[in-house]
């Protein structure tokens, strides 16, 4: 065995993907999908969303950008002809927005489930089938053992396995290889890496989602500063937006 063999130099041993070093990011054997945000890529082992393992996203509130942060990666997979499975999403995924984000609707599968058990089952099936490039799951309340099952299913695939959980789940133990808590900071998304393979990440990564949002706004004037009040009768009823 490699570990007992004295002729294997230490440096060679340290390149093994299953050895976790405290001072550096782990080397990742499986492929990664770039997130589309350079600041985030730099902090993730493998330089992107890892495939073949479970990734948890824990947004502080619903709607702060938990999908927009995935948008570029999902679009990349879509362009490569990969299929995406959305399992048990909390709301209706809105086709025009997905389309505008570059996600091929023809290769999108939405699974709606009544019970958490069904969502986990569907996620396991989707991961096991090798048909999907990414599996997005909103599982509701899950136990450690169930997450472990999903992690094992994810390890057998080359798909992204994204799990969306409420932020209070951050306190619970999880077998996921990557766990990100999402919060907002000064208009941008603050991504706190709770767990990753390799060194601990002390500070949150600031991801500016809105720069991409702005790019999608060519026909909608920025009401606050650009649109003259005379053209915007509604604005006159709101002289100043509330500064939160």
């Amino acid at each position, binding site marked *: 065995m490699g570990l007992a063999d004295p002729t294997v130099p230490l440096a060679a041993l340290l390149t093994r993907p299953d050895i976790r070093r405290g001072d550096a990011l782990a080397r990742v054997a499986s492929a990664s999908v770039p997130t589309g945000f350079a600041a985030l890529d730099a902090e993730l082992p493998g330089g992107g969303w890892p495939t073949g393992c479970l990734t948890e996203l824990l947004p*502080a*509130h*619903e*709607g*702060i*950008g938990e*999908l*927009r942060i995935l948008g570029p990666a999902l679009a990349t997979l879509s362009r490569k*002809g*990969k*299929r995406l*499975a959305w399992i048990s*999403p909390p*709301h*209706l*995924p*809105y*086709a*025009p*927005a*997905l*389309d*505008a*984000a*570059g996600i*091929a*609707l*023809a290769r999108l*599968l*939405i*699974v*709606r*489930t009544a019970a958490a058990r*069904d969502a986990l*089952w*569907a996620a396991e*099936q*989707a991961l096991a*089938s*090798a*048909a*999907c490039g990414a599996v997005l799951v909103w599982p509701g309340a899950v136990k450690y053992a169930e997450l472990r099952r999903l992690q094992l299913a994810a390890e057998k695939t*080359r798909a992204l396995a994204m799990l969306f959980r409420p932020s209070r789940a951050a306190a619970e133990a999880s077998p996921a290889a990557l766990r990100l808590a999402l919060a*907002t*900071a000064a*208009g941008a998304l603050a991504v706190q890496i709770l767990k990753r393979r390799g060194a601990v990440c002390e500070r949150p990564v600031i991801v500016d989602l809105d720069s991409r*949002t702005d790019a*999608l*706004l060519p*026909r*909608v*004037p*920025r*009401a*606050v500063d650009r649109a003259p009040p005379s053209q915007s009768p*509604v604005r006159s009823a*709101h002289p100043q*937006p*509330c500064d*939160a």
Partner: protein
Amino acid sequence: MRPGNAVSAARALAHDLLVRPRDPARETEALLGLAGWAAQFTPAVALELPDALVLEVSGSLKLFGGVDLIRASLREGCARMGFTVLVACAPTARGAAWLARAGVERYIGRADALPAALAALPVRIAVRAADTLEALHAIGARTVGDLAALPRDGLARRLGQQLLDDLDRAYGRLADPRAFYVPPAEFHARLELPAEVTQAESLLFAARRLFVQLEGFLAARAGGVRRLELRLFHRAAAATVVPIGLVAPSRAASHFTLLARERLGTVVLPEPVRALALAATDVVPLAGGNIALFADESGSPEDWPKLVERLRARLGSVAVHGVAVAEAHRPEHASQVREPMPAQEKGKRETGRVGLRPFWLLAAPRPLEEIGAEPHCGGPLKLLAGPERIESGWWDGDDVARDYFVAQTADHALVWVYRARGAATGWFLHGLFA
């Protein structure tokens, strides 16, 4: 215990023996089912009633990789359907049937080896009629070889020309034309269960036998099915019908079994099941699969329909769907649920760009508080972009007149809100940019 023992003698040997009357009609039915299944190896399948099938395989040797592989496939397939078979090969159909009936599982490839092989068989294999058999035993003919050595004219005079013809056909001296079995256009098979069954797992075990039979039937026709119907028969209650739908035509027994497992898991049985029947009525053409030259990293193309079917089998077809962009201005009409596998996949974007749209659209717009003419959603909303005016739908009574804004909540989430104009007024939350 041997065939031919009296029931009373058998009972004396095994007191808990279960005796069932033989049902020749059902035996023939099973043989017909096997013939349909065996037609995947050759189109020339003939029935050799009451208990044998004859397959002309010399044209199929190359395709299936030789006679040994065909014999192995036959044995394995029959075992999966719950039958034990004896397989013998010979240059003549009757010769092969005789060898198999005698339990001699040999492969005789050359015509000159056949007489020696047949000669060793007991004479009861060649002669069915009891009185003829008795007469042959009386003159000391114990084997087929003895029979063949008897003077031909005397044999024909005493025991009939038929016996001589049968012998000649087995030895290949007389042509032996057969009426080949023509499988029916639809698949129907029924299986009686040895005991009443209540568990889905045991039902699945029985159903698998029917699926294997169906697979052979479909392979023979180069077809597949999109819809199966499994009927479970009870003692008194009406049969339970379990339809199994497939997204794409298939003929793999393993695939049918997977789907049936999910479906049977959800079926509530009124009574134990005594028999089950499988029907496949619309057989569609299905080409055989090509094996990929290189391992494809995105999996095989069948994985996708299979996944959809598995999910649908357990969760119901409505729960598994795709979405499409519809040409509609009203936001709630611009996204439509559709089948998860559209026939042609469009590579390009489906619509031109409209305004910014949220990833999540709420099922129903949620009214927002209005404090000092400003919308509030857990705090004041900061309007970032807008208005985008949408007025549409006057023709179907569901008309909307709204000014949409992209707004930011106090906790920096981006939301899509609108101010209703016209009859209904007020602010509503309609989407989350997530």
